[in-house]
């Protein structure tokens, strides 16, 4: 298949299936079927894309055949390739989980098309090589996220949604402002072209100032300190499948964008910008994990903890060495499915135990050993315990930091991971180990039968799959390591990206 086809298909496939879903909105079965087929097709397409990138290096395509920098370029490098692949695989897991998790009402009112369009927006953000085009995908992300968050109509949900939308809207507006200013300087929107043109621009301080605007905008989307507050107030309210998708993927896309901009475009004053990033990374780690330590609700712990992990990813970008970026790529990919899986598990725990509140839960280890094992795998992976994938993610970052004597941030990172462990073990001790509170209805057989075996399989299958992925990557880290290594090389090496996009 041609490169341009491979690059556009991850964007068009979800669009196609979203459209199909809308056309078939009357039949619930048809919607469910198309959603799953579409998501599977998405996996196939991204596998092909990733293989091509792995074999050929960075590939680019010009939309409408207008040569760069005049049209819009799509670019696939190893980082974006592994990201779209991860998104495809994890969203398939979400779609399957949704079959048993999303109520009929939501299914009827366009849940699947909206989720498909969100996937499309995410893929667009990951594959575009154009600054303004990225803004368009940000908009689509926001509006589809809004629809997904709001169909449901509970009061609490709407309150969180409004915060989410208004703050993210500001982020987009700020991004647009920054794009405008940048365009005023270089007169170009193509990221590779902008990078080239900035090299000869003299007032680098001005660029640095504009880069701070971008930093705030992406920082909002990535939920970094001190701009993270929208996240813990909105992620725990929608159905589990939706919050799992958001938690797993959306903030990590912002990290991807941050990594892209701060390796390709804003490298004029690394000593300044990346030091700021390092501070942000450290503070974000600490604040997120403290939040998690203080919470006693399953999903709230997981939500605020996303913030902490974002800090680690920023640490890798900030340290700005090949090893550190390798760590970030590894960490991002690992986080997507580990964090997602924990959310999915929280949903099953809620179905089986009747609550998200740790105090009301209990006895899951006694009654559902399998769920306990799945939780332990994901939780210890999140806390960076070997031999699970999370260990390698933490290890590479720690190694990268120590390699360049960044003692403080490594110390913070290690200290924070102890509190991560504390938060995960807290869930374990309360929800799994502790006995059910006296007279809790979940203790009866009837209660356990409330959930049909078919539903349970649909809920558990994605969780088992993602947990297996954690174990497999943990035991055989070589593959993801090699991918991350090449992704980091390409990020740090800029020229391959620039030449591929701008070649006539």
């Amino acid at each position, binding site marked *: 298949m041609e490169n341009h086809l491979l690059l556009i298909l991850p964007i068009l496939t979800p669009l196609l299936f979203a459209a199909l879903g809308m056309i078939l909105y009357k039949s619930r079965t048809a919607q469910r079927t198309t959603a799953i087929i579409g998501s599977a097709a998405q996996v196939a397409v991204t596998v092909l894309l990733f293989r091509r990138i792995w074999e050929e290096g960075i590939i680019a395509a010009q939309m409408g055949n207008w040569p760069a920098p005049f049209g819009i370029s799509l670019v696939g490098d190893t980082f974006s390739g592994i990201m779209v692949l991860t998104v495809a695989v994890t969203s398939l897991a979400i779609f399957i989980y949704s079959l048993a998790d999303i109520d009929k009402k939501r299914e009827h009112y366009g849940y699947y098309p909206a989720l498909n369009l969100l996937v499309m927006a995410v893929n667009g953000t990951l594959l575009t090589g154009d600054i303004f085009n990225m803004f368009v995908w940000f908009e689509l992300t926001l509006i589809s996220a809004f629809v997904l968050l709001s169909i449901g109509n509970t009061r609490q949900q709407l309150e969180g949604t409004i915060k989410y939308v208004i703050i993210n809207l*500001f982020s987009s507006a700020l991004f647009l402002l920054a794009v405008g200013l940048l365009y005023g300087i270089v007169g170009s929107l193509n990221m590779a072209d902008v990078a080239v043109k900035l090299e000869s621009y003299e007032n680098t301080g001005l660029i640095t100032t504009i880069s701070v605007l971008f930093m705030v905008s992406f920082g909002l989307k990535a939920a970094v300190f001190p701009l993270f507050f929208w996240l813990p107030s909105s992620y725990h309210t929608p159905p589990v499948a939706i919050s799992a998708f958001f938690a797993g993927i959306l903030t990590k896309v912002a990290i991807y964008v941050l990594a892209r901009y701060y390796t390709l475009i804003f490298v004029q004053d690394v000593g300044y910008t990346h030091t700021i990033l390092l501070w942000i990374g450290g503070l974000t780690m600490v*604040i997120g994990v403290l939040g998690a330590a203080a919470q006693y609700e399953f999903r709230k712990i997981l939500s605020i903890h996303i913030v902490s992990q974002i800090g680690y990813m920023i640490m890798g970008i900030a340290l700005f060495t090949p090893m550190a970026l390798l760590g970030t790529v590894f960490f991002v990919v690992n986080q997507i499915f580990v964090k997602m899986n924990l959310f999915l598990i929280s949903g099953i725990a809620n179905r089986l135990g009747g609550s998200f509140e740790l105090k009301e839960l209990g006895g899951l280890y006694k009654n559902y050993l399998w769920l306990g094992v799945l939780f332990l795998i994901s939780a210890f992976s999140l806390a960076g315990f070997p031999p699970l994938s999370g260990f390698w993610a933490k290890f590479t970052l720690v190694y990268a930091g120590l390699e360049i004597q960044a003692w403080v941030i490594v110390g913070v990172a290690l200290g924070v991971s*102890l509190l991560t462990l504390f938060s995960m073990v807290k869930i374990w001790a309360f929800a799994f180990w502790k006995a059910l509170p006296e007279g809790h209805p979940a203790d009866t057989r009837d209660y356990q039968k409330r959930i049909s075996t078919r539903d349970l399989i649909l809920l558990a299958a994605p969780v088992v799959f993602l947990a297996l992925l954690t174990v497999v990557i943990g035991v055989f880290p070589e593959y993801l390591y090699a991918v991350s290594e090449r992704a980091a090389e390409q990020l740090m090496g800029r020229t391959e990206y620039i030449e591929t996009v701008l070649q006539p």
Partner: protein
Amino acid sequence: MLTAILVAFIIAFLAPLIVRVAKDYSGWVLSILPAGLFTYFMINYGEVGRGETIRETTVWLSGMDVELAFLLDGLSLTFALLITGIGTLVTIYAGGYMKGHRYLDRFLLILMLFMASMLGVVLSDNLIGLFIFWELTSVTSYLLIGFNNEKEESRSSALQALLITGLGGLALLGGLVIMGLAAGTMNISEILNSGDIIRDHPYYMGILILVLMGAFTKSAQFPVHFWLPGAMAAPTPVSAYLHSATMVKAGVYLLARLNPAMGSTEAWFYLVTGFGAVTMLTGAWLALVYTDLKRVLAYSTVMALGTITMLIGIGTDYALKTAAVFIVAHSLYKGALFMVAGSIDHEAGTRDVKLLGGLRKLMPVTAATAAIAALSMGGIPPMLGFIGKELVYETALNAGTFSLVLISMAVLANIAVVASSAIVAITPFYGEEKKTPKHAHEAPASMWLGPMILGTMGLLLGVFPSLADRSLFSASTSAISGVETSYYLSLWHGINLPLILSIITLAGGLTVFKFWNSLRETKAMQGYGIALGDTPKSIYESLLNGTLKFARFQIDVFQSGYLHRYMSTVIGVTVFGAAITLFLRADIVWPEYHDSVSFFEVTILILMIVAAVAAVVSKSALKSITALGLIGFAIALIYIQFSAPDLAITQILVETLTVILAALVLVKLPIPDVVDSMGTKLRDGFIALSGGALVTVLMLIILQGELNLELTEYFGENSYVVAHGKNIVNVILVDFRAFDTLGEIIVLGVAAFGIISLIKLYMNDKKEEQQP
């Protein structure tokens, strides 16, 4: 060796299935695994005993020099034999102890996983490989301590052990990575062979402190020794295996392993000897404060771990030899005594010595076992424990400047140990028979076999030290010191100072034992228990609670829940970040304007300012929205002024629609009038103004530069010729950048469809409400 460990892991996962088939014989059946591994290691005994080493390497993650590399030398063989040998006996014991337990399958699964991990720790020849197994032992230990998971005490003890060893683990990770980076390799043998590279490295102190944090937390050294007695919440087989014979020795194992690369510096001597000696003395006497058998044994384990640490710290040839012997002696007798305590608990229903007495007749075999093991613990000939204690005294006497301090501490500590041995072996079994919660009778074979064998081993090695001295002990010592060593051990050294000290110790210990009941109740002893046993634990607890308190506090600060405050923060951060950067990093050149500003422009400007002020000042939401609409129209006028009629038309349409829609919403929704205090208004006004000022300044600076018109020119040239469109803007939208337009169309589509969903759901809900 990789195969051995892998087999262990695989069989561990099969344990639940095996339990299902073997039922009450599970312990016996599963013990085949550790027994097989024990045999495997014994096969290598001869070769390793001759001072040879066996090595094998499998690359795990080549990019970071992580290998599954294994090394079998005297030190690792000693530990491997202890792990698999005691593992066999403990598995058999656990089968009896936990007979009929609902979760015997889970228990044995985790126990086997622990064993495999522990083997990994002692066999690893790669720093990171070692660390990975190290962490696995922490996790399995956590799961085993919390095995009685419905008890609050089990859960908090498990958490406490995990957090403390976890903290140490993280420090250790840092230390090992720095060490690997400093040495240029992660391979332990290579690091040990490359001599002084670590000792002379500028980061030596850092590495040392981090590694010691790892080792000390794992081996329960003062002041974190309290987690070990806490871990006694675990079922007794776990206490016998993990928390006395094997896992807690991982810390001292690490010190011994790294001694050739890190030892024999001053810092090493002071830190390792110091912490070890203090732990030894503290632990020994804490054992006498409590009447719970397991607690007594736990603190005496702390004492032993302190002793070994101290020995490695002293680091003389003699000290290291002593360490090699003491490790084995301690594992044998302590493993046995824990199992004895478990048997008493199991059969009599309590392990509080105050409630026990005269069990000798009811449990003769257990009583005999306890006696043999306690003799070794008390350091009485002809047991291996005696040799060990003599060696400790000999070492302390020859420790140079500090020998007087160290020997006094050692004698004092050992007096307490003699007393503890007597408490464990005499009190429950002799004296008048007491009525116990359960009517006691002899433990089943599965439960006395293990301790019996361990006790007997202590006796055998004491009487015939030649079984191991020239082979295993010498090879182990060689590995610790890094220098080829070979020696004999013997029980009888003639009448010398250590022997005299031993006699003093024995007499002192028995005296303490005689008055133990009253001594224990004294204020001094209770105060000692509170000061050194409970206080460190309460410090840990208040640290934890303090962190949690701070965590809750920061949530209130950073997540107030008010959107208004959030927006102020966001805009504030934006303006502050950009302004400070502009000030610090950029050359600000103010523009010079020569063009005169037209009357028309000034009018629009005034209009906008008035409207903006009105929007802010007005108390009615409706008025504010109208005023904002006015600003929009003024912008449209600017577009007209600069001859962009199409933009102006769009702007007017959008503004009109916005105002109308907003007004309609306001009619439907009773939004209360804004009542902000003056302070809030001023603050908001300041934030808003500085935001505006920032953008203005940035625009002014950027507009001085020449706009790069490459794109504009290209579009101008190609719009008609190539794209066949006369209106450049249209061609940009539908051709050059049609991909953007596709995205925007979808955005609008999603918005429409989201609104429809919301409305329909709302209508449906209403319908449902009306028809209950």
